[in-house]
């Protein structure tokens, strides 16, 4: 009679866990997708070199005579590889990787079309007095293409490989983009896992009247919520371990700080988002409303919390507010542990704030919770 398998908490946890792992799409979105994202973004932003610049060259028209000028085109004909109407020249540099410039010889009107379509980023007027470059100065890619092309025209192809000894590429652990990305993905995984896994499940159960059916029994209500949170926590842990294992094996991402601090922060982050999830799902029985509420919570944080790119590009006045968002706090602190060697002493405040956020949200959520 007293076997653990007859206990309601055991049964509730087992039921919630079974429900998660029996849904194949959960495994894809929870486990495979974050790893694919880490892989894709890690490769895209970690690969050395591979700079590509595409420019359109338009024959210049000399003043009164209307004679076409081809100073740059002549130089390219002598020095670059030509295929169809495209000249390609590759500049070598072992330290920062090669740069490939493609110059497409075309008419003025077609050049504009190519620019609008994003096929080139700069249009060059080939004048005898020297090339004139047209591009959007706010476009970083166009700016880089201009600088490469102008340097090439003014200084010749060797400029790119000169002075290589002065360059020291940062390849040590903790300084690459992938080192920046992985802690952010771990934090985001906790947020997404909790908000969808807990909030949406509760709202759906309420809409199906299952919560109402359950509370018509002697079930302890706290056991139901505890089981839901526990099952989700186990899943978040499994997802995080797999993502970390991938990042460690494939990219050599390492935890330079304290593992106990990392574990504590992981738990604190889960508490924060479990509490928030209970709060947002405490009232509504409409899954579409729930969908909107969860999106309204997670999407802004995904954008501003610096998971993928630093939030320091946002205006100065916004940064203090951004730093106090739970996702930012978790991301920043994970990064400090992974990349800056932070220990428990450096993260306890954040862990405490996250835990408090979770506990307070949970308490409010439970007070206003609608079971039917």
């Amino acid at each position, binding site marked *: 009679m007293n076997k653990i398998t007859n206990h309601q908490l055991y049964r*509730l946890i087992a*039921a919630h866990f079974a429900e998660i792992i029996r849904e194949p799409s959960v495994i894809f979105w929870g486990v495979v997708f974050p790893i694919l994202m880490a892989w894709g973004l890690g490769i895209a932003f970690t690969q050395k070199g591979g700079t590509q610049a595409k420019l359109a060259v338009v024959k210049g028209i000399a003043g009164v005579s209307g004679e076409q000028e081809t100073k740059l085109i002549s130089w390219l004909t002598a020095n670059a590889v030509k295929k169809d109407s495209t000249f390609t020249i590759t500049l070598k540099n072992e330290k920062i990787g090669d740069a490939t410039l493609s110059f497409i010889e075309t008419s003025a009107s077609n050049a504009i079309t190519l620019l609008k379509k994003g096929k080139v980023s700069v249009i060059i007027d080939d004048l005898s007095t020297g090339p004139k470059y047209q591009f959007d100065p706010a476009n970083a890619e166009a700016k880089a293409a201009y600088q490469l092309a102008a340097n090439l025209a003014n200084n010749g192809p060797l400029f790119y490989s000169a002075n290589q000894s002065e360059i020291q590429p940062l390849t040590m652990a903790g300084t690459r983009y992938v080192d920046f990305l992985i802690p952010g993905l771990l934090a985001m995984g906790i947020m997404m896992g909790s908000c969808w896994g807990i909030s949406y499940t509760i709202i759906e159960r309420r809409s199906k*009247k299952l919560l109402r*059916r359950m509370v*018509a029994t002697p079930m302890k209500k706290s056991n139901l919520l505890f089981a839901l949170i526990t099952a989700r926590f186990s899943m978040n842990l499994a997802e995080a371990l797999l993502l970390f294992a991938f990042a460690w094996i494939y990219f050599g991402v390492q935890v330079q700080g304290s593992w106990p601090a990392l574990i504590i922060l992981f738990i604190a982050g889960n508490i924060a988002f479990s509490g928030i999830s209970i709060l947002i799902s405490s009232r509504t029985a409409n899954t579409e409303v729930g969908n909107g509420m969860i999106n309204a919570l997670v999407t802004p944080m995904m954008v501003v919390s610096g998971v993928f790119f630093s939030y320091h590009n946002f205006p100065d006045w916004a940064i203090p507010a951004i730093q106090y968002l739970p996702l930012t706090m978790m991301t920043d602190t994970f990064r400090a542990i992974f990349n800056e060697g932070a220990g428990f002493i450096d993260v306890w405040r954040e862990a405490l704030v996250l835990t408090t956020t979770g506990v307070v949200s949970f308490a409010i959520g439970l007070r206003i919770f609608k079971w039917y």
Partner: protein
Amino acid sequence: MTDIEYIVEVRQVRKSFKDVQAVKGVSLKIKPGEFLALLGPNGAGKTTLVEMIEGIQHPDEGEIFIAGKQWKHHQHELHQMIGLSLQETRFMDKLTAWETMRLFASFYKLNSHRVEEVFTLIGLEEKKKAYVDNLSGGQRQRLALGVALLNKPKILLLDEPTTGLDPNARREIWNILLDLKKMQNTSLILTSHYMEEAEYLCDRIVIMDQGNILGEGTLLEILALGDGQRSLDELFISLTGRHLYE
């Protein structure tokens, strides 16, 4: 429990939602082992009355006693005593029928032995390992009935247990309930639009409309209320001017 005269006693109960008076001063008594049908069209107040007996709605006025106890002070005890099946409950899709039953059994501290018994009772042994979302409508309804019977309830509340089922599936539910009736341990309150369900299963019929009880008694007593109608539906039309199933 045998010395209690009435297992359910509803005294002058009223309940309103915003501007709508759902139940307007209803009284009702049910004996242990008695099967009672609450008949009435949509909006008659049946569900509200059942929800008050079930303890999830509280009357604005009046009192409800279950085995002599009130919800306010005896919630835990009363939950042990009641079994219910709601019209639209959907269990977790990815649990098997067996796991669903074990889950609910654990709330009553019951072991797998009782779960086996209930599967036999509802005739769903062959579907134990099927996921809930692979069960047919009738099988799901039988599962819901099984869950309601796990704790051997003194009072079983069934809200339209056969709505939307085909005649065979309906007959299967009725047979389970008739077996239960023979054991004489359980009182049943059943809401329905189907008069044949009430005629077939229940000792007593209560007809409700617009929050009031229009008549109650055995089928014959009820029919005697009217003037010569031969069926409940005809009687209902003569009392309210509407069909029962509207």
